[in-house]
């Protein structure tokens, strides 16, 4: 968008049927409905600045050699588990779970307690999108807008949970430690209100018809769950990089394709803007 705003002639190749990448997952999480606005903004501005958008199209090296500049924003793919039974039918990637939550059973283990693990858990336990309903939200958090008592507090009513969820992580640190400083406590409190349990310091052993086998505090146990959702990070997608470099094309890589360690829309947008401002 920034490149086109500056007058460049921009073609945007998108392999999927819709623009937005990881934002299309975020916007489906209860409490993250605002992400729809960002997608709307880019849709409108890309049209305004006449960006040539080619959906469902994988750019080929032959096509790309004809451009003056190539920016790779090919993003990430979810990392898969490498344990016996990782291909068991009960296992889903976070992308699958978010796109098709109806495939997720009643008892669920979420592997990985980073930002995506928290988001997936939120999606799986929520029945009412309280961010869209002031009264339901006030009940959940114990807010009395009539201020009948000092401070405007009332007894919170914890909502019924749609599923029984246990969140696991390999690290021994507090789950959600790396969430945002001013927002992490809200996510932790919300999941606690929905009865989500969290286990840190887990070793994942195998998956079979019994469920997920883990070692936790030196004890081997089986979590008898219906579904296992893998939120164990992601890997950069840059299979175009080698061929493009071989063809002698100068390429700039931004966002998750450059560094996938933590999904980071902030860095991706910043890098995109900086690269475009310098073209």
């Amino acid at each position, binding site marked *: 968008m*920034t*490149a086109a705003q500056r*007058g460049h*002639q*921009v*073609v*945007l*190749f*998108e*392999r*999927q049927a819709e623009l937005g990448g*990881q934002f299309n997952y975020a916007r489906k999480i209860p409490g993250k409905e*605002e992400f729809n*606005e*960002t997608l*709307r*903004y880019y849709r*409108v501005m890309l049209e*305004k600045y006449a960006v040539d958008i080619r959906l469902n199209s994988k*750019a080929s090296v032959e096509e*790309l050699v*004809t*451009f*003056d*500049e190539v*920016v*790779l*924003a*090919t*993003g990430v*793919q*979810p990392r898969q588990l490498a344990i016996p039974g990782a*291909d068991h039918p009960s296992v889903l990637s976070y*992308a*699958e779970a978010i796109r098709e939550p109806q495939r997720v059973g009643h008892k669920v283990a979420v592997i990985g307690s980073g930002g995506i693990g928290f988001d997936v858990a939120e999606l799986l336990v929520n029945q009412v999108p*309280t*961010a869209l*309903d*002031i009264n339901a939200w006030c009940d959940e958090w114990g*807010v009395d*807008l*009539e*201020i009948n008592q*000092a*401070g*405007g*507090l009332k007894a919170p009513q914890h909502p019924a949970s749609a599923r029984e969820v246990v969140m696991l992580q390999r690290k021994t640190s507090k789950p959600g430690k790396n969430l*945002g400083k*001013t*927002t992490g406590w*809200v996510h932790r409190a919300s999941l606690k209100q929905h009865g989500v349990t969290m286990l840190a310091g887990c070793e994942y052993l195998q998956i079979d018809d019994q469920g997920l086998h883990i070692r936790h505090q030196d004890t081997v146990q089986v979590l008898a769950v219906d579904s296992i959702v893998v939120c164990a990070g992601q890997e950069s*997608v840059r*299979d*175009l990089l080698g061929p493009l470099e071989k063809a002698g094309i100068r390429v700039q890589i931004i966002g998750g394709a450059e560094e996938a360690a933590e999904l980071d*829309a*902030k860095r991706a*947008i*910043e890098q995109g803007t*900086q690269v475009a*401002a310098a073209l």
Partner: protein
Amino acid sequence: MTAYPHIFQPLQLGPLTLPNRVLMGSMHTNLEESPNGFARLAHFYAERARAGVGLIVTGGIAPNPEGAVFHGANALIDDSQLAEHRQVVDAVHREGGHLCMQILHAGRYAYSPELVAPSAIQAPINRFTPRALDSDEVEQQIADYVRCARLAQQAGYDGVEIMGSEGYLINQFICQRTNQRDDQWGGSFENRIRFAIEIVSRVRKAVGKNFALIFRLSMIDLVEEGSTHEEVVALAKAIESVGADALNTGIGWHEARVPTIVTSVPRAAFTQVTQKLRSEVTLPLITTNRINMPEVAEQVLAQGHADMVSMARPFLADPEWINKAEEGRADEINTCIACNQACLDHTFAGKLTSCLVNPRACHETELVVTPAAKIRQVAVVGVARRDLRQP
């Protein structure tokens, strides 16, 4: 003909005639303490004033060093500092905007070992325990507010906003939760609000009529032993009687265990709290929290919840919010998604505030988007994920 007739109706706020009903609310950006920070702040605010923001309130400036939000954060205490403030004021005035300086004393929220408060009760979100002020020191604190307001007037600001909410010093005097004094500044409700009343009253006397005075009043504390609604009403009336020009809304103390501004809070969730005061006072009331799009602001105003809306983060996300709304281009607004990732999370980590959806925010002088010198063919290759194990 605008689609938002209530937003684009002029408002008289004390001596100020404002073109619309939107206030750009106070945000600490950390530029206040950065090298060349005031020059950069001038660009940041001027860009917003140029695009139609009628009234801006600056980030909180302390009336004395012990009241600063963290050790070394900006305090306006003498006239050697006026020149840097004038840079910002002049830049906003050149664009036709108005600028009020917020006076914020953090009290027991100050992240520094010198912190002071009505009583020596540690805040659950601070590792430092405050020292209780003695009666003379309370008088000195009030004098510091007055000095700060006079300096702001000398710097050319159009007014001040006195921060009385969010659990900061004034709010700490008002509520029993943090005020266990037994002198004239504690005990009864009349004594607990005396600090707020004296500040507003003496500031008004010092600055005269032709200077806007906004008081930010905590209308729902969201903590135990917070104010009752009757106390909020009584305080609002008392503040009105000593010369404030408008009341801005404060929602929740920082230590509240209720989220008040994150994205999962419903839009305009708290505006009815402001509305409850409308029949009690005649001052213009400003409401706030999770108002991010013109249709939301318009509805809040049309419903009569307030006379004006305050938005802070939405002006990080899009400096041109006002112009786009006024020109019927609301779909071009880069919306604040209330993620906090590049604003508040940065501020608390000691980094410069910016915005996830607008990385130019507070980097106006560095990340400059200009027309290209030579037009190029650019290919951007988007998401090529292969995340589905297709059956």
